[in-house]
């Protein structure tokens, strides 16, 4: 029988939904709060903020991260900035506009109610972070500075040099450390969640492996929050940190949580191109660079060999400005990425392998002077030079799209609760707010909105409205979950084959990038659906994981993650194959307008595809949550 997926978006006019809901929700009596234990897996913006805030409220919190410190969560790497509808610039911004831009940017595949709430909360986020001492960029007058970002015509992005994510995360981390010191939060670093414990239908705990000792133990609670980030590393090469993984949400999926829109992945247009096959990850050059940089390739193939300086102005094709006059270099990520791919496919790409386009600052340096540019992007330019050994002040940067963000994730309702009662999902790990494409500077906003403002309210409602019997550590469900993890671990160690984990990860990445990347086709996806199970079988037959399970064993950790990617990749292809339309980051070659733009099919696909696990060899079951638009009329997205 199909899952019942109730969005639980409250009735009433958009602007009042959240306030009304907050009033309608049950509250936990302050003196009872510390009787409740909440598990928060993840210490990034979403998890860190949630753990700190829940502890401030008085709940008894247990927080987990796989790094050696909560401060190292991948949110730290976010560069460009965070959006908020403050309209400090008086350039016509408003909650309504941020809401509309986000829905439109997501190509009309997100829930109105969630996105409107996000836009409303965006303001409180900035206030909260300023109060914490986040050193946002300031004008000389002492007020907060803004910059513009892709997909928007207003300047609403707040930033701290090129290290916005770092500063926001440190804000949440410091609040978290404050609560740890106070005793409200128990922190488990170097601890990896390897399974979800579900007792009579409710999420009541997780199975954790201590990465140092290798001990595998159950951790029980009244509610579980997963804020474990995105699964972009299924492509092997991505801008994500090496440790980013799908394990937590994938385990939950296999315990019955629905996985929504897995094929909605974002390719970021401005990354440093691949240099060689030893490449271990790709480095993002913040989108904010597109404020001042102009993207071009030679107009003629035979100029591609030349040094950029030797290509005359007339022989340059500023293809974004040409194709999308009104948004130009600031057109949304999916559009900019695809445009870059096209020109490279036409053979007009530059750099090694012809897989790159120029991001040129010559004009900006002319206009604003090198110092202003250094002030704005100094650290990004240094990073580029450190990696490529080229000086972007003199020669244009070479950039190429790379996997960056995953809009898909575990299905959640308006309260950020999955279809498993008690299992809440926040941040990039859920599918909630970005539809088929995320606008720049909106993920930090969503992570913090979920963590600081949404969960602390909705989680209380869940605890207050449900009677939760204590669970014993020897309950059959608990014992079974722990046993599963133990067997799986020893299986991974037991194979003792001939191939390294990394080699499997690389091969999977190639398949995904080739057939489930920037442009997808039914034929390609079918090929992938044949290749992936084969690769998975070989993995379990031939993988080599040295060392033991009772010690720090990074190969073992990686192996577990790759094993999950090998399953998730298949689901992504299945989802991509079923979605017979092009929308946002999902571009199906069969579904494009004559001039190569994405063609959506709102009649057939205006829904959330929530996949349900049906056993390792059985194909996942598709459930649909229809998307109803009461306030926005769906239109063909145009940035021309």
């Amino acid at each position, binding site marked *: 029988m199909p899952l019942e997926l109730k969005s639980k978006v409250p009735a009433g006019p958009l602007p009042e939904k959240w306030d009304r809901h907050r009033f309608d929700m049950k509250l936990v009596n302050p003196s009872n709060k510390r009787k409740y234990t909440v598990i928060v897996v993840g210490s990034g913006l979403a998890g860190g903020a949630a753990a700190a805030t829940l502890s401030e409220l008085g709940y008894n919190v247990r927080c987990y991260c796989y790094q050696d410190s909560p*401060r190292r969560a991948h949110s730290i790497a976010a560069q460009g900035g965070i959006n908020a509808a403050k309209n400090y610039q008086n350039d016509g911004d408003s909650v309504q506009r941020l809401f509309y831009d986000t829905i439109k940017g997501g190509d009309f595949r997100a829930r109105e109610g969630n996105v409107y709430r996000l836009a409303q909360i965006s303001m409180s986020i900035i206030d909260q972070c300023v109060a914490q001492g986040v050193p946002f960029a300031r004008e000389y007058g002492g*007020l907060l500075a803004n910059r513009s970002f892709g997909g928007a015509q207003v300047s609403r992005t707040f930033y701290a040099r090129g290290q916005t994510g770092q500063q926001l995360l440190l804000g949440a981390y410091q609040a978290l450390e404050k609560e740890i010191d106070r005793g409200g939060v128990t922190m488990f670093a170097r601890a990896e969640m390897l399974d979800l414990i579900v007792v009579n239908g409710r999420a009541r705990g997780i199975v954790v492996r201590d990465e140092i000792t290798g001990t595998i133990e159950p951790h029980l609670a009244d509610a579980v929050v997963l804020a474990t980030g995105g699964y972009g590393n299924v492509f092997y090469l991505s801008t994500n940190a090496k440790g980013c993984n799908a394990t937590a949400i994938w385990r939950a999926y296999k315990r019955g949580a629905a996985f929504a829109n897995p094929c909605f992945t974002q390719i970021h247009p401005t990354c440093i191109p691949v240099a060689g096959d030893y490449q271990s990850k790709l480095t993002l050059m913040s989108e904010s660079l597109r404020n001042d940089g102009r993207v071009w390739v030679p107009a003629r193939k035979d100029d591609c060999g030349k040094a950029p300086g030797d290509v005359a102005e007339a022989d340059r094709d500023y293809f974004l400005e040409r194709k999308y006059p009104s948004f130009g270099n600031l057109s949304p990520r999916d559009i900019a990425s695809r445009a870059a791919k096209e020109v490279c496919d036409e053979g007009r790409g530059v750099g090694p392998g012809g897989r790159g386009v120029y991001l040129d600052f010559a004009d900006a340096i002319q206009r604003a002077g090198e110092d202003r540019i250094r002030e704005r992007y100094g650290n990004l330019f240094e990073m580029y030079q450190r990696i490529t050994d080229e000086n972007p002040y003199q020669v244009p940067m070479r950039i190429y799209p790379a996997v960056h963000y995953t809009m898909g994730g575990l299905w959640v309702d308006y309260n950020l609760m999955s279809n498993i009662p008690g299992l809440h999902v926040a941040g990039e790990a859920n599918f909630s707010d970005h539809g088929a494409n995320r606008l720049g500077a909106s993920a930090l906003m969503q992570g913090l909105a979920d963590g600081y403002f949404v969960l602390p309210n909705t989680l209380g409602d869940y605890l207050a409205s449900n009677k939760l019997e204590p669970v014993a550590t020897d309950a059959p469900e608990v014992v079974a979950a722990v046993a599963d993890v133990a067997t799986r671990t020893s299986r991974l160690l037991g194979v003792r084959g001939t191939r390294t984990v990394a080699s499997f990860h690389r091969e999977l990445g190639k398949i995904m990038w080739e057939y489930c990347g920037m442009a997808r086709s039914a034929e390609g996806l079918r090929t992938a659906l044949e290749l992936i199970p084969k690769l998975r079988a070989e993995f379990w037959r031939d993988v080599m994981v040295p060392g033991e399970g009772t010690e720090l064993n990074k190969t073992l950790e990686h192996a577990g993650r790759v094993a999950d990617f090998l399953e998730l990749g298949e689901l992504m292809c299945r989802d991509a194959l079923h979605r017979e339309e092009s929308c946002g980051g999902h571009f199906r070659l069969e579904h494009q307008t004559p001039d190569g733009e994405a063609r959506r099919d709102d009649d057939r696909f205006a829904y959330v595809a929530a996949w349900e696990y049906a056993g390792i060899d059985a194909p996942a079951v598709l459930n649909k949550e229809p998307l109803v638009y009461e306030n926005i009329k769906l239109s063909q997205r145009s940035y021309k």
Partner: protein
Amino acid sequence: MQLTLKVWRQRGPDVEGGLEEYQAADISPEMSFLEMLDTVNERLIEKGEVPIAFDHDCREGICGSCGMMIDGVAHGPMKGTATCQLHMRTFKDGDTVVIEPWRARAFPVIKDLVVDRGALDRIIGAGGYVSVSTGGAKDGNIIPVPKLDADRAMDAAACIGCGACVAACLNGSASLFTSAKLSHLGLLPQGQPERYRRALKMVAQMDIESFGGCTLYGECQEACPKEISIDFISRMNRDFLYAAVTTSAESGVGDDS
């Protein structure tokens, strides 16, 4: 290119360790230092041997996970660069490279090049925050912050918590790390109310974790991937001394300092 590595191998926290020699064959100068280690590790795994354990995550010089002593220099020869951003082009073919973990009592070795830097978290926990609970904040523009203060605060806040300052310091002092957080918050209006209390508490924690004192060697600043300045250490000293002679016990500090 071809290099000889002398790497510290240690199976576990209380196991004897030692330097072992490895050959890193056909390394591309475009590789990052960690990609070079990846290559060496993959070959070890293919031979069924246990690879060299080291911490890393973002590989963009921002998360602070990576870090090792390379030829006796924290994060290696390139100034203002974390290990993950170091590239092989800074080495010569045929070089011998000695790789050791951070060394400090506060950073016990867990395995090979992996150490426990929890002490740094506890220093932050002791007071490296502004005590505001979520919700109450007023509009972000209510308190203007002079641009130069915001910029200097950002200079200090850029710290990635890698611990290279401790590793490089001949005293094993965490002064640069601690002073960076104290200065970040101490330079902003939001950080003023707790400024002196914070100085007392964080410095006390720094001592509890048995880091060494500061002789002003300046090695930390040189090793710091974010080039945090030792001027912040002066600032920390000033705030601490002022607090020590003015703040009275009921500030809640006397008890645990």
